[in-house]
C-alpha cells in the first residue's frame, strides 16, 4: 500500500524533503573519509571537487536564510533592569508596540530594557496585561520606525509546517543577537488546562523547535518569517527545565483579538459563554448547563441545544468550544450558531467575564513573582516557587528569580537605591492606577476618542461652547408616520413618539426605562453622548477606553469607550478608521439586555437612529433636525 500523499503542504513538506536532503549531504564528507564504504554505497563518488549543491536544495536553503533574516529584526530580547530576569518579545508596530508574556514582564513591573538585533538597547514601558492568556504588551521607546513582524493567520497553520523560534533562551542574548531554533509544528489547536489558577492556553500551537527558559514571550514564525504566535510555555517534567521537544505558543490570532484591549493599558480578562458543554457521544457538542442570567440564554440557547459555530468557526467537541472561547476577551459579542428543537439560530451573543475584576487582580497578584530583593533588607524567598508544582505544564520564561545563585550576584545600587531608576522621559509614560497595567495608555486612547467625537456630527455642527453653559439637544424626526421629538439636557429628558410622551428628570428613571426595554431607553444613550461631549472623559465620571471588539458580532473591531452614567454603563463603539460612533450601548441591569442606539448615517451626517434591545428593534427614527441649545428646552 502506498499511503504517500502527493499533496505537499504549501512551503512545508516540500521544504522537508529538501532539508532532509541537506542533512544527508552535510553528513556526507566526514564519513566519506572515515567510513568509505558507507559513502560509496550511498552517494555519487567523492573526489576532490567541491560539493555541488542541488539547485533545489540551494534555493530552499536561501529561502530559509531569507526568512530568518526577515524575522530576526522584529525579535526582542527583554531584560529586567537590575538583573531581575528577562525573556523575549516581538515588535508588532513601527511605533514600538511589542508583545511578550505576562510572566516575563511581571518581575519588571512597568519598566524594562529591550535589545534588538541591531545591537541597540531601548527603554520600554508596560502597556497592557492579559494575565489569563499570559500576554503582555510593552512599548519600546525612541523610534517611530522600528522593524516589526508581519502577522500570519495562525488558523492556517498545520501540524508538520516548518517554523522557527527566535529569542533569548537562557538570557544568552547579552550581545543582543537572538537565538534562532528551527523545527515543525507538532500540533495546532491544542488546549492546555489552566496552570495554577489563572493561566489558560487555548487554541495554542505546539512545536518541536527548541524552547527553553528565556524564550518566553518571544515570537514563533512560519517558514516565511511571518509571526505565528507568542512562545509561552513548555512541558517540563523530570528532565529538568530545558527543552524536551515540546513547546507551546499562544496563537497570533488570539493575540490579534486582544491587541485593542492590551493597548488600553488595562489588565484584561477572558470571556466565557455562561454555559458548560459536553461532547455528545453521537457527535456534536451540546449545552449541559447554562446560566439564566447569561446573554446566551436570553438569545435562546438552552440545555441540550447543539452548538454549531462560534464566531464563524465550526465546533464539534467540548474541546473545540473551549479552544474558540478561550481566545476572546471579556465583553466581546460574537455570532453563535446553535440548533435547538430542530431550529437553527444564528445570533450575536455577549460573552461574560471569566473573573470579577477584584478576583482577577487578586489571582494576578498571587501569580506574581516576589519583588526584586531590596538591599539592606532580608530577602524573601518564599513566594517564587508557586508554579513549580505543576508537573507538566509549568511556565517557562524567567529563570532568575528561581536561581538564588544569580540573586546573590546582584549588586546593591546604594542605600535606598534598590529600584532601578527610571529615566524621566520614560516615567512620564507611566501612570499607575488600580485595574490598569499602565493608565497612561488609556489616557492616550481617551484623548483620541474625545477628539474624534468632537470632530464628528453632531458636535461639529455647533460652535464650541464654554463648559459652564448648559447645552441641550433637541432631535426631531419620524418613525413611520408618527412624529418623534427627543430632547436631552441636564436633568431634563423627554421623548415624544406620536401621541406617547415620556419625561424624566432623574437618571434612575432612565435606568428603569432601559431595564424595562422601553423606547425611552434611547434617552440615556443620547444624554451620555451629549454629556461626554460637554465634559470630556475626565469629568464625565468614571470613563475609560475598553479596547476593540466586534459590533453586533461583526468585524472590523470597533473602538470601545466606556463611561459610568448614573448606575448605568455606557459604551461608545466607533469605527476604527473613520472614528465615527456607530452604536451606543446602555447597560442597566447586567442580567437584562442593554439598550443599543444604532447610529445610521448618510455620509458623515446622521440620518437616523435605531433603538434595539437584544435583536429586536424598539424604535426607528429618521432624523430631520438636530439642534443644540444653550439651555434646556421648556
Amino acid at each position: 500500500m502506498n499511503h504517500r500523499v502527493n499533496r505537499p503542504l504549501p512551503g512545508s513538506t516540500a521544504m522537508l524533503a529538501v532539508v532532509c536532503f541537506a542533512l544527508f549531504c552535510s553528513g556526507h564528507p566526514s564519513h566519506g573519509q572515515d567510513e568509505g564504504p558507507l559513502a560509496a554505497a550511498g552517494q555519487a563518488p567523492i573526489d576532490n571537487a567541491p560539493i555541488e549543491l542541488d539547485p533545489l536544495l540551494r534555493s530552499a536553503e536561501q529561502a530559509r536564510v531569507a526568512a530568518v533574516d526577515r524575522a530576526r529584526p522584529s525579535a526582542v530580547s527583554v531584560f529586567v533592569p537590575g538583573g531581575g530576569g528577562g525573556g523575549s518579545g516581538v515588535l508588532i508596530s513601527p511605533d514600538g508596540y511589542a508583545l511578550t508574556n505576562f510572566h516575563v514582564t511581571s518581575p519588571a513591573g512597568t519598566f524594562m530594557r529591550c535589545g534588538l538585533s541591531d545591537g541597540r538597547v531601548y527603554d520600554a514601558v508596560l502597556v497592557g496585561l492579559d494575565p489569563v492568556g499570559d500576554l503582555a504588551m510593552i512599548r519600546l521607546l525612541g523610534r517611530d520606525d522600528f522593524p516589526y513582524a508581519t502577522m500570519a493567520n495562525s488558523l492556517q497553520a498545520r501540524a508538520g509546517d516548518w517554523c522557527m523560534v527566535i529569542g533569548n533562551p537562557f538570557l544568552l542574548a547579552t550581545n543582543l543577537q537572538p537565538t534562532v531554533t528551527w523545527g515543525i509544528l507538532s500540533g495546532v489547536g491544542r488546549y492546555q488546562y489552566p496552570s495554577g489558577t489563572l493561566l489558560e492556553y487555548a487554541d495554542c500551537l505546539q512545536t518541536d523547535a527548541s524552547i527553553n527558559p528565556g524564550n518566553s514571550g518571544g515570537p514563533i514564525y512560519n517558514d516565511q518569517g511571518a509571526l505565528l504566535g507568542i512562545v509561552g510555555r513548555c512541558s517540563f517534567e523530570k528532565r529538568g527545565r530545558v527543552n524536551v521537544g515540546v513547546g507551546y505558543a499562544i496563537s497570533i490570532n488570539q493575540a490579534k483579538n486582544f491587541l485593542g484591549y492590551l493597548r488600553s493599558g488595562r489588565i484584561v480578562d477572558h470571556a466565557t459563554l455562561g454555559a458548560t458543554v459536553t461532547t455528545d457521544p453521537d457527535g456534536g457538542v451540546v449545552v449541559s448547563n447554562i446560566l439564566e442570567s447569561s446573554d446566551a440564554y436570553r438569545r435562546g440557547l438552552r440545555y441540550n441545544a447543539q452548538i454549531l459555530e462560534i464566531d464563524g468557526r465550526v465546533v464539534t467537541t467540548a474541546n473545540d468550544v473551549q479552544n474558540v472561547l478561550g481566545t476572546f476577551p471579556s465583553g466581546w459579542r460574537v455570532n453563535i450558531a446553535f440548533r435547538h428543537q430542530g431550529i437553527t439560530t444564528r445570533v450575536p451573543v455577549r460573552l461574560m467575564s471569566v473573573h470579577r475584576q477584584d478576583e482577577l487582580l487578586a489571582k494576578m497578584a498571587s501569580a506574581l513573582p516576589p519583588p526584586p530583593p531590596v538591599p539592606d533588607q532580608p530577602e524573601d524567598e518564599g513566594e517564587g516557587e508557586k508554579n513549580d508544582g505543576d508537573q507538566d505544564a509549568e511556565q517557562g520564561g524567567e529563570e532568575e528569580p528561581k536561581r538564588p545563585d544569580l540573586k546573590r550576584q546582584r549588586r546593591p545600587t546604594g542605600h535606598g537605591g534598590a529600584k532601578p531608576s527610571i529615566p524621566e522621559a520614560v516615567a512620564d509614560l507611566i501612570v499607575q492606577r488600580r485595574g490598569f497595567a499602565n493608565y497612561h495608555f488609556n489616557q492616550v486612547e481617551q484623548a483620541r476618542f474625545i477628539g474624534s467625537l468632537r470632530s464628528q456630527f453632531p458636535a461639529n455642527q455647533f460652535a464650541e461652547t464654554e463648559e459652564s453653559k448648559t447645552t441641550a439637544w433637541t432631535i426631531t424626526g419620524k418613525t413611520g408616520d408618527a412624529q418623534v421629538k427627543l430632547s436631552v439636557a441636564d436633568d431634563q429628558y423627554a421623548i415624544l413618539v406620536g401621541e406617547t410622551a415620556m419625561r424624566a428628570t432623574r437618571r434612575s428613571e432612565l435606568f428603569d426605562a432601559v431595564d424595562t426595554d422601553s423606547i425611552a431607553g434611547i434617552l440615556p444613550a443620547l444624554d451620555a453622548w451629549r454629556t461626554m461631549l460637554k465634559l470630556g472623559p475626565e469629568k464625565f465620571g468614571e470613563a475609560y477606553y475598553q479596547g476593540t471588539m466586534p459590533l453586533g458580532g461583526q468585524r472590523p473591531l470597533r473602538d470601545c469607550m466606556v463611561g459610568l452614567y448614573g448606575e448605568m454603563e455606557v459604551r461608545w463603539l466607533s469605527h476604527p478608521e473613520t472614528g465615527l460612533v456607530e452604536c451606543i450601548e446602555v447597560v442597566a441591569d447586567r442580567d437584562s439586555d442593554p439598550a443599543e442606539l444604532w447610529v445610521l448615517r448618510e455620509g458623515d451626517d446622521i440620518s437616523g437612529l435605531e433603538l434595539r434591545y437584544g435583536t429586536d428593534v424598539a424604535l426607528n427614527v429618521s432624523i430631520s433636525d438636530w439642534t443644540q441649545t444653550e439651555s434646556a428646552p421648556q
Partner: protein
Amino acid sequence: MRYRPFHPFALAVLLSLVCLSILPVASAQPPVAPDARDVQQRVVKIYGAGGIKGLEAYQSGFLVSPEGHVATAWSYVLDVEPIVVLDDGRRFESKIVGIEPSLELAVLKIDASDLPYFKVDKEFNAQWGDPILAVSNLFGIAAGNEPASVMQGIIAGVTNLDARRGTFQTPYRGKVLILDLIANNPGAAGGAVVDADGRLIGMLGKELRDSGTGVWLNYALPIDALRTALGDIIAGRATTVPKENNPVLRRDQSHNLTTLGVVLVPNVLESTPAYIDAVLPDSPAAEAKLRPDDLILLLDGQRVGDQQTLIDLLRRIDRRDAVSVTLQRGNEVLPVRLQP
C-alpha cells in the same frame, strides 16, 4: 560523525542496509515528504493503567491492519484492557491479542474496519542520516479528538543497545534507531516513526535512561525487528489470548502451582502479577532454575495477566505434559520449559 564502537554484526547489518537502500537523492526529482496528517491518521492514543506515582496512564500506538490491529509498546499501561482513541476521536475498548515481551511489543485489537493503517514492509531501508517524523501522544497532549503530536529529526545511528548490559533497563536486545530528536517522552512509547515517504520504519520505545550517565535515550525499535512478531500475532499464529476451547480438567489431572513447584507472592490485589515468591525443591521449577522474583509472562504462549489467569490456564493442561513458560528476570526475558 562517529558512533559508539560497532558490534561487527551491527556494522554488517548497517552496510547491507545501506546497499539496499534506494537513494532518491541521486535522482533529479526530490523525494516527496510525508503529509503529517496522513501519518497522524494512522496513530492512536492508548489510555490504560497508571496515573499514580509518576506513571502516566497513556501511551501511543499505530494501526497495522485495516481491521483495527494496533501495535504498541508492551507496558504497565496495558495492565487493564486499554481504551484506544483514533485520530478521528472515536473511542474503542480494545483487547490485547498478543505480546512479545522480548521486543516490548503488544498488539491490541479494536472492533473496527476500513481504518487507515501502516503497511509493515519486508524491506527496511532506513539508515543513519535519514530524515524522519515521529508521531506520538507524548505527554498526553493530544486530548479529546486532537491529532497526535508530530516531531521531526533524523536517524543519528542504527546500533545495538546491549553493548554494555545493564546500561539500559530493557529486555530488548536488538538493533535500535538512535534519533536526534527528543522523541521518547512520557506517553510517546508505541508512537510511529516514518521516513520521508511516510513509510513506517520504527516504533518509539519506552523511556530509557543510561544508568551510568543519566542521559535519556531517544530511540525507536526498527520495524523489521517487529515484523515477524506483528505478522504472527495479526495472523493469529502467535496470539497470546487464552485458548478458551481447551477444556478444564479435573483437579487431580491438571497442573497447578504445586505440580510445577512454584509459590507465588501473596494474591492480595484484584489483579496480582504472577511473581514467584519461592521455588519448591526437586520440582520442575527447581529443575528449570526458576528463581524468586521471576515474573511469569506467558504460559504455553498465552498471556498471564495475573495470578488468577495463571491458575485458570494451568487447570486446562494435563499434569503429565511439559509446560513452556516465558518469564522476565530483571531486564531479561527468558523462555523456559518445565518438565514434570
